[in-house]
Every structure is written in structure tokens, then in C-alpha cells.
């Protein structure tokens, strides 16, 4: 027999109240009366503990609600050995984040998605509308390569035919942007012209000097994004001497600054290609958000009335459980973004999924209370009926929720993009609904239906 346990109830009440306060947005409370004057706010709290800031002011909203831009980039990993692909993808992310920051967007969200062998970088720029600018910041990047002359070719070419491309003359040397540690704009001491001084890593310098020594009196092509910038000829005295880090000359100051900035932001280790670009207006999303809130409110009101009508006192308990459910889930949504960088983001499918999970949470209560009604019909007193109602209903609640949880887990592991988000929302919902609508509700009935002896 389940014992009535008021102290547990108090603990739960405190917990749910905290969750509800964290879930609430900032709401001003103003009340003025000749005797009492209240002017305060609740919800939307920000805490500081040590150096950590816990910001509960708002949910993290997806682009489809807040508006902004989204750009998806495909990373071509065909040239990268398999065990280095993850780190290369992270390098690309870091570099592009820096580039986008240079572009002047402060609050970006970017994440890598990997499915099978395809790596993608998703860049979200909330509140931004200048797609062209963003793409040029991201895409007009400098993929720096050093190429050497092909066997049997001369440069500059002696006879050019229309069909010939640069690829017919130059072949990659294996040294490129990923071997650099930095670059800066300098002025050539003899000519006073601006130039870009490249700085190799130790390993890069070694590779470069080997190539230089193999190509004495031949040109080495410096390519930025497959465009030949210049092809200086290696002077013969370098064959035995020390090879300095190269400079790029023949550029004006503006170009030098731009190229150097791009190189400083880092040259991308892999070629990239834009596969999706969106500008999303905020008006549509806000409209849908507002209407979803109204729809949720209206249907909750109808469900509450129905609960009281059909379960009486137990109906009130179901309502309290449902409100606890909503508070806890929303608090988790906010909290997940404080703890991790990839927390629950409120998107339109996410909101729809959440509303649906409210319905599923109701189901647990309905299963229990229908069962209790049945047990009463079979002649048990309310006390026994409540007891066996929870016991018997648990078996079907357990099986159905475990199955849905398992299915969501698989979707979470294998799905991409919003399917993943949807599965995560559903999993959180299942766990919380078991807590509120089975455990909490059991404790509540045991305390409140005590004196109800038939």
C-alpha cells in the first residue's frame, strides 16, 4: 500500500515552483491601492554564481521564429585521411566562425553535422539579412596552395590554346594554407611596395624548403582559391641556402590587407561548397509562435474543463500535474542552453512537438484515472481503487513510453537537423511526464484523497 507522504509533497511543490519561476519570462506585477502598492517582476532571472552566469531570461529561439540567415556548407573531405576528418571539420568551423565575426556578426551559431561520410557546417546568423555579404565573408575565402610546374611545361607559357587551363601547367605541391601559422602586411624594403609576409609552421617550413630546393630556376605558383596570384621563379642560390618564408608581392595595400586578414583568419584545410542558403523573415515565425501559444492555451482550457468534468477531484490533480509538466519541461529547455552549446532550440516543429508531448503527458493521467474509475465500477472502495489504478495502469504506461522513448532515441542518433531536435524534445517529454503524471500524481492523490473513505 502506498503511504501518504506530505513531506515529499512539500519537496515536490518547492521543486515545481522553482521550475515554474525559471520557465516564466519576465512579467511585471503592478498593483496600486491606497493601502498597498506593489511594483515588482517575476520570472526571467539571471543568476551569478562565482564566474558562472545562469541566464534564464529567454528561450533559445530558432531562426524560423527569430528570423535571420542560415547557410549550410559542404566540406569536401576527399583529400583528407579518414582519421583526420573530424579535426579538419573543427578547424573549418573555427576559421569560419572567425571570418563571420570579422564580418560583424556577434551572435552566430554554427555546428557541424556529420552523416555517413559527409561533413557539413551549418551557420546560423540570427537577425542578419545581408546574404551576399555573409557569403562573401564565408566563401570568398583564401584557400592557399603552392603548386609546382608540371613536367615539360614552361611558365609563362610559350603557346596558349583556348582549351588550356592552369591545371595543365601546375600541379599541387602538397603545401598550402594549413601549413601556415600566420601572415602580415609588410612593405618591401627595396621597392617600398606592399607585400604579404607568410609565416609557416615548423613542419610547413621544412616541406616548403624541400619543394623550393627541388625547383630551382623554376616557378612556384601561389594559388588563392584556384586563382594564380603570382608565380615567382626560385633563384639558383636558394639550392643550398636557407629558405625564408615567402612573400606575396604585386598587390596593392587594400588587397594585401584583405588577403592577409583572410589568411590570418586561417586558410581552410578543405574546399567548401555552399549547399543551402536561407533568409528567413521574422514576421511569419512570430505570427506562428503567437498563434501556437493561443492554440495551446485554448486547448489546455478545454482539456482542464474536461478533466474536472470527468474525474472530479482527481481532475484537479491531473491539472496540477500537467502544469508541473509544462513548467519542468520549459525549465529544462532553458537550462539545456545554459549547460551546453547545443541545447533545445525553440523552432516551429519543436513547438508543435512540445504541444503534442503535452497531449501524451495527459495520456498518462487519463490511463490512471480511467483505470481507477473502472476499479470503482468493479466494486472496490476509492482507496483500493486508487491503489490498484496506479499499479495496473503502470504496466501499459511503462510499455508505451519505453517504446516511444526507444524509437526517439534511435531517431536522435541517426536523424539530422530538426529530426534530432524533435526526438530530443520527445525524450525529455517522456521522462518528465513519467515523473509528474505518475510519480507526483501518486503522491498528490495519497495526500489529498485520504479522507475520502467510501
Amino acid at each position, binding site marked *: 500500500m502506498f503511504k501518504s507522504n506530505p513531506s515529499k509533497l512539500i519537496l515536490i511543490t518547492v521543486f515545481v515552483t522553482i521550475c515554474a519561476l525559471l520557465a516564466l519570462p519576465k512579467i511585471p506585477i503592478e498593483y496600486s491601492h491606497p493601502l498597498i502598492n506593489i511594483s515588482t517582476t517575476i520570472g526571467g532571472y539571471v543568476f551569478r554564481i562565482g564566474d558562472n552566469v545562469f541566464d534564464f531570461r529567454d528561450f533559445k529561439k530558432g531562426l524560423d521564429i527569430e528570423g535571420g540567415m542560415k547557410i549550410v556548407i*559542404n566540406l569536401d573531405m576527399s583529400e583528407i585521411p579518414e582519421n583526420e576528418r573530424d579535426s579538419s571539420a573543427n578547424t573549418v568551423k573555427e576559421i569560419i566562425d572567425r571570418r563571420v565575426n570579422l564580418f560583424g556578426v556577434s551572435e552566430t551559431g554554427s555546428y557541424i553535422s556529420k*552523416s555517413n561520410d559527409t561533413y557539413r557546417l551549418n551557420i546560423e546568423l540570427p537577425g542578419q*539579412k545581408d*546574404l*551576399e555579404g555573409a557569403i562573401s565573408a564565408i566563401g570568398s575565402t583564401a584557400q592557399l596552395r603552392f603548386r609546382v610546374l608540371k613536367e615539360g611545361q614552361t611558365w609563362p607559357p610559350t603557346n596558349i590554346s583556348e582549351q588550356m587551363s592552369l591545371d595543365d601547367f601546375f600541379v599541387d605541391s602538397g603545401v598550402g594554407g594549413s601549413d601556415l601559422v600566420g601572415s602580415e602586411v609588410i612593405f618591401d624594403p627595396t621597392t617600398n611596395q606592399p607585400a604579404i609576409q607568410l609565416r609557416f609552421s615548423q613542419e610547413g617550413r621544412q616541406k616548403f624548403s624541400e619543394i623550393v630546393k627541388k625547383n630551382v630556376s623554376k616557378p612556384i605558383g601561389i594559388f588563392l582559391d584556384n586563382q594564380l596570384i603570382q608565380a615567382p621563379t626560385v633563384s639558383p642560390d636558394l639550392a643550398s641556402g636557407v629558405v625564408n618564408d615567402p612573400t606575396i608581392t604585386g598587390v596593392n595595400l587594400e588587397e594585401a590587407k584583405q588577403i592577409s586578414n583572410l589568411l590570418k583568419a586561417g586558410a581552410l584545410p578543405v574546399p567548401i561548397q555552399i*549547399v*543551402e*542558403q*536561407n*533568409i*528567413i*523573415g521574422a*514576421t*511569419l515565425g512570430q*505570427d*506562428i509562435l503567437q*498563434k*501556437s501559444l*493561443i*492554440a*495551446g492555451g*485554448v*486547448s489546455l482550457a478545454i*482539456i482542464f474543463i*474536461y478533466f474536472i468534468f*470527468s474525474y472530479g477531484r482527481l481532475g484537479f490533480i491531473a491539472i496540477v500535474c500537467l502544469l508541473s509538466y509544462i513548467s519542468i519541461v520549459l525549465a529544462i529547455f532553458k537550462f539545456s542552453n545554459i549547460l551546453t552549446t547545443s541545447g533545445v532550440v525553440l523552432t*516551429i*516543429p519543436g513547438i*508543435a*512537438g512540445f*504541444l*503534442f508531448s*503535452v*497531449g*501524451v503527458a*495527459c*495520456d498518462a493521467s*487519463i*490511463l490512471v484515472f*480511467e*483505470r481507477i*474509475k*473502472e476499479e470503482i465500477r468493479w466494486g472496490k472502495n476509492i482507496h483500493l481503487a486508487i491503489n490498484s489504478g496506479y499499479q495496473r495502469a503502470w*504496466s*501499459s504506461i511503462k*510499455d*508505451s*513510453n*519505453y*517504446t*516511444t522513448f*526507444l*524509437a526517439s532515441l*534511435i*531517431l536522435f542518433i*541517426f*536523424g*539530422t*537537423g530538426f*529530426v534530432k531536435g524533435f526526438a530530443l524534445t520527445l525524450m525529455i517529454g517522456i521522462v518528465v511526464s513519467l515523473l509528474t503524471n505518475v510519480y507526483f500524481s501518486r503522491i498528490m492523490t495519497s495526500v489529498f484523497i485520504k479522507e475520502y473513505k467510501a
Partner: protein
Amino acid sequence: MIDFIKYTKLFIVVSLVAIALGIYGIVSYGLKLSIEYTGGSVISLKNYESASSIENIVLQKDIEIKEINEIDGLLTLKLNETSNEKLAGLQKELTSNQVTQIEDFEIISPSYGAEFAKNSLIGVLLSLIVVVLFMAYSFYKVSGNLSPWSFGIAALVAMLHDILITTSLFSFLGHFNNVEIDALFLTAILTIIGFSINDTIVVFDRIRENLNKYQDSKSLSEICNISIFETFNRSLTTSFTVVIIMFSLFTLGSGSIKYFSLALVVGLTAGTYSSIFIATPLLLIINKYLKK
């Protein structure tokens, strides 16, 4: 007590007719896929002079228009796949000289959409297999002469029934109302899968309980009938609560969310119907074959 099992044939015929109609729809009208799956671009514009002037600008850029829509001063153009340069040119032209104001601009490459669809499908299929296995496991110790596999398979068929009905409705909506199958539709299908399994398991769980209770006194079909009857109230109440949420979203919502909630209203209703009238009779039929 209503004898549900007696009318098994009627319920199955009703479902078969609905499915046949649905297959007719899918075969003859196909499914209208959104650019999330096919690739292409969508532009939404505000503050423009006239739809035809915008149309001219687009056509001048040598870009094919798939569809053009005008709702509440918002012009939405769906464009076939084209080069990024052309689209950049179009964007420049539309924003220069204050021709119009771009509200939404979406470009998706076709391979991306196809891959997204493939990944989602793999996820769904894997989770279905897991569901059947899990059900076989949790109904393994069921008493009586029931094969544990029959529970999983019956639940699976009931769920496919719900998905098929929802999908085929969208082939009709696509043909007659230009409604597209988008990423939200996939969310709806995932939701319907979850709900359908949930609903069916509750009925099957009661069958399991009643098998223990009435093992020696009642026949299998009688036990099934009692179980359906006993869970009837719960099934209706639950789907009432979920459908009411989705129905209010449908009536209030606009755009893609409207059809998302419609898909859910239809799918969840079908799910309730199938868990009551289809899953259990199927359980009996499948069990008969598995036992042979």
C-alpha cells in the same frame, strides 16, 4: 457490451477502401515535394508593385518559376533549381531601386534534400525495427497461445495504415490545393508513428492482463473484445485531448503549420481508429497464421 470482434470484417473493409483510395491518389497524383526535398529556391517578397512585374524580372533572369502565390501582400515565388550566380543577380535586382523587400529567401541544393530524406527514412525504419523487437520482448511471457511476434507485427501494420492514410490525403491535397510535403510533414509522420504505437500498446497491454485473468474461462476473441471495451474510454479521451490541441492549431494557424496540424489531426484520428478496430483483429488473424 458491443461485440467489436464480430464486426472485424466491416472495419477491415472500411480501412481497405480508404487505403485503396489513398493508393489511387498517390499513384495518379503523386506527392508534391517541397524544395527541402527536390532542391530549388523560394523567395517571399513584400512591398512590391505587382505580381506580374516581379514575374517579369525573374523571367528576364532566365530562371524558371515553379509556382507563384500571393497571400496578404506577401508574394511567394518557388523557383526551379538554378545557378547561385543567377540567384545572386536576381536578389540584387529585386532589392535595388526599391523594387521590393525580400522577406524570405531560401536556396537548397537537390542533393542536400535527397540526403536529408534518405537519412530521415533510415532513422524511421530503424526505429520501427526496434519497436517490433521491443514489443516481441515485452510480450514474450504472455500467456495463452499467442505468439509474441504477432503483437509487434499487428502494431506495425496498424501504424503503416495510419501513415498511409495521412500520406495519401496529402497526395489529394497536393493535387487539388497545392499543399506540399515539407520537412514539417515528416515531423507529423514521426509524431503519428509514436502516437499509433502508444495507442496500440495500451490495448495490447490490456489483452495481456486479461489473458491472465480469463485464460480458462473465455475464448481468445472474447478476451480481445473485453480488452477493447475496457480501454475504449481511455483511447477516446486521449485522442480527444491530443486532437483538440492540433485542431486549434489547424484553425488558428496559417501556412505550413496549418497543414502540419491537419496531418496530425487525420493521422491521430486514424491512429485511434486503427488501435481499436484494426490492431486487435489483426492480432488474431496474424496469430492464426503464425501458429499454423
